[in-house]
């Protein structure tokens, strides 16, 4: 009973400490949240963004001897009406420049793109000079810049295409071949199609970019939702790192009690020292369990993370709790004062976390040597367990990482407990 009393007293004190709450719960959620909003949330469409209203006036026409099938202005217009951008660009056609300017003035649209009648002629010939005019609401900053970039990139691409085709013609002539004029429109069309796809994939299709980041490791099945998979690994990495921090920090309560004099006072009560130490250890285990459950619940509801099958997730969490508690007891057993604890926690756990792959969990194709290093850290084995659980693996597949985490945790715990027992004998 006294063991529980001591453990609950420690828990009470821990969860009244703003620092402890911050490092145990808020920091991992905050860091994961930042990554979520930087990549996952935005790309996953969970975060709504007000669409930019863009008006397009396309007066461009093909010159008489043009090798093109359609005026270049049509490509620019199509870019704003493409389905890949419809979630963030709301485009509409205007018959002429005056109507578009009036719409901007009336704040019906934020930006107007006015394509002149001789744009294609200008791009196909050096003799004609035409300019695409962008009119924007002066109160806006981002939307005009985005539209301007899109137009410039499209025009750069067209100019690049002209250069590419010109180079092709010159190379054929240099090789004694006469270019077939009938082929030129085909080349232009193919180039234009390719460039449009290139732009779309590069800038307007985040799912494709996200797929690159979530290439699954060997032996893992691909998650149905790549964003969710990425967030799951990110959150797991953060949760493991802070679980180990929590294990060590919670164990530091014994050093703080030693300094506050309450540990000595505990020793004057009719409570066996082994029970006092057991109470302290139990507090560490309970804190890490509680932290894991809170973070898993928050991660599920905030970021939509599916932690895997219940038993698999329980095994992964169990391994995490045992390894984090064991390492916490071991590390703090070498520390004499709570002041010494800071560098040990900051330096030691960060280094072990990095070696364990906690900060690179989402990076594909890591060197084999680096992945091997993870096998020498408890964090690495805990991460293996979570990777399997997140990938939906059956509990049997988690037995190895769980067993290793359990063995490491028990060994470290036993050694640390022996050190503490000797110190406070």
């Amino acid at each position, binding site marked *: 009973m006294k063991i529980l009393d001591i453990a609950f*007293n420690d828990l009470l004190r821990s969860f009244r*400490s703003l620092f402890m709450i911050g490092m145990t719960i808020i920091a991992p959620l905050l860091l994961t949240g930042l990554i979520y909003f930087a990549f996952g949330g935005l790309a996953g469409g969970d975060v709504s963004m007000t669409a930019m209203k863009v008006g397009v006036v396309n007066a461009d026409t093909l010159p008489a001897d043009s090798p093109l099938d359609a005026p270049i202005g049509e490509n620019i217009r199509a870019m704003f009406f493409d389905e890949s951008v419809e979630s963030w660009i709301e485009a509409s056609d205007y018959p002429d420049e005056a109507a578009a300017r009036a719409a901007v003035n009336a704040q019906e649209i934020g930006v107007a793109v006015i394509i002149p009648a001789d744009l294609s002629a200008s791009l196909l010939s050096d003799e004609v000079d035409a300019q695409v005019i962008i009119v924007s609401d002066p109160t806006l900053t981002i939307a005009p810049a985005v539209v301007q970039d899109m137009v410039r990139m499209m025009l750069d691409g067209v100019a690049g295409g002209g250069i590419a085709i010109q180079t092709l013609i010159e190379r054929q002539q240099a090789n004694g071949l006469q270019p077939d004029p009938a082929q030129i429109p085909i080349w232009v069309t193919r180039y234009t199609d390719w460039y449009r796809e290139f732009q779309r994939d590069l800038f307007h299709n985040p799912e494709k970019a996200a797929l690159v980041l979530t290439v699954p490791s060997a032996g893992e099945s691909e998650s149905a939702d790549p964003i969710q998979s990425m967030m799951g690994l990110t959150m797991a990495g953060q949760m493991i790192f802070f679980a180990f921090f929590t294990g060590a920090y919670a164990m530091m309560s014994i050093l703080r009690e030693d300094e506050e004099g309450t540990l000595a006072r505990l020793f004057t*009560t009719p409570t066996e020292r082994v029970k006092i130490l057991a109470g302290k250890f139990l507090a560490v285990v309970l804190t890490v369990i509680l932290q894991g459950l809170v973070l898993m619940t928050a991660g599920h509801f905030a970021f939509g993370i599916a932690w895997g099958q219940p038993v698999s997730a329980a095994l992964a969490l169990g391994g995490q709790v045992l390894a984090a508690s064991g390492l916490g007891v071991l590390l703090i057993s070498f520390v004499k004062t709570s002041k010494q604890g800071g560098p040990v926690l900051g330096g030691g756990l960060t280094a072990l976390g990095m070696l364990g792959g906690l900060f690179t969990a989402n990076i594909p194709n890591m060197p084999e040597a680096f992945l091997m290093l993870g096998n020498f850290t408890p964090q690495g084995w805990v991460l293996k367990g979570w990777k399997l659980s997140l990938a939906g693996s059956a509990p049997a597949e988690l037995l190895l990482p769980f067993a290793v985490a359990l063995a490491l945790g028990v060994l470290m715990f036993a050694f640390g407990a022996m050190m503490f027992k000797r110190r406070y004998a």
Partner: protein
Amino acid sequence: MFFRRIETKIITKLLGTGLDTGYALLDQLYPRALYKREKEKMNAIEVKNLKKSFGKLQAVAGVDFSAQEGEILSLLGPNGAGKSTTISMLSGLLALDEGDAAIMEHSIRTAPEAAKASLGVVPQDIALYPDLSARENLVFWGKMYGLRGAVLKTRVDEVLDIIGLRDRQKDAVGKFSGGMKRRVNIGAALLHKPQVVIMDEPTVGIDPQSRRHILDNVKELNRQGMTVLYTTHYMEEAAELSDHIAIMDSGKVIAYGTHDELIKLVNGQTRIDLTLNVEGLNVLDAWKVVEGVNGIDSTDGSSTSLRPGSVAVLVSDSNLVLPRLFEAAGKLGARITSVDIQEPNLETVFLHLTGRALRD
């Protein structure tokens, strides 16, 4: 004590009450004085040849003393005398090198848990959880002494009343003043109604009002029958509280007895505290050979060189010796700027026994 136990058991049987009620009834039937004779037969604290060394330093060098049930015994001595080390061993914090001690007849070597259950320890430094409220602290420490449920709640309420902090019970201890923290520090040792309370310099560094409150608490606890082992380097506290006083120096008990018995050790000698206005003169050496001077100590711990500050001189007859001291100082060109003649007290005793003043 034996008879009291028998009588209590009989009352308990007859009335079908609990032991506490039995004792309370007995207290009403027999005023304390009536069974004092049989109480004197039992030592609540028995210390025999206690020794403790830290490396080459022998902090406690064979200490013997005892305290009868229901008395206040003060351990008086300067800092470093071995008081705290002695009580650390008694309260189970430090292992003994040699010797043994018993609390309510439970050896701290062979039955430490039983000894601790009879003991309440008030550490010298505040040993509380600053982020918990006064009540939460008391509840926790009560649980550590095995109290639970309604008994614990009642005792916490009673102790909050004893220490006078009922209205501040929900405030975090970290926000309390030094004196209030000291009171909670004491309260945490009283929850289980210990038969013996050890208090290690509980009034160090606190305001006079809190000191008064604590001293009154100690007397009240003793009145209720608790045995108190009180360590201090304030002789006034030892004199006011104690039934017996053990004077410690250099890890040993150098004198033991009641206040009056100890005062008799100095044979009516008087202590004179003098202040000189000069330095560098060998006035102390001159005073040492003055007829009627039995001991001398300067505030810097040296008896051969003189610096500005107080000098304590132990004399047989102040009327005779004081003019001689003035004369000796005057011959060396020194001037006495203040004189304080003290009737024999524990300071005088300590000076008499060690040749040094008992000071903070």
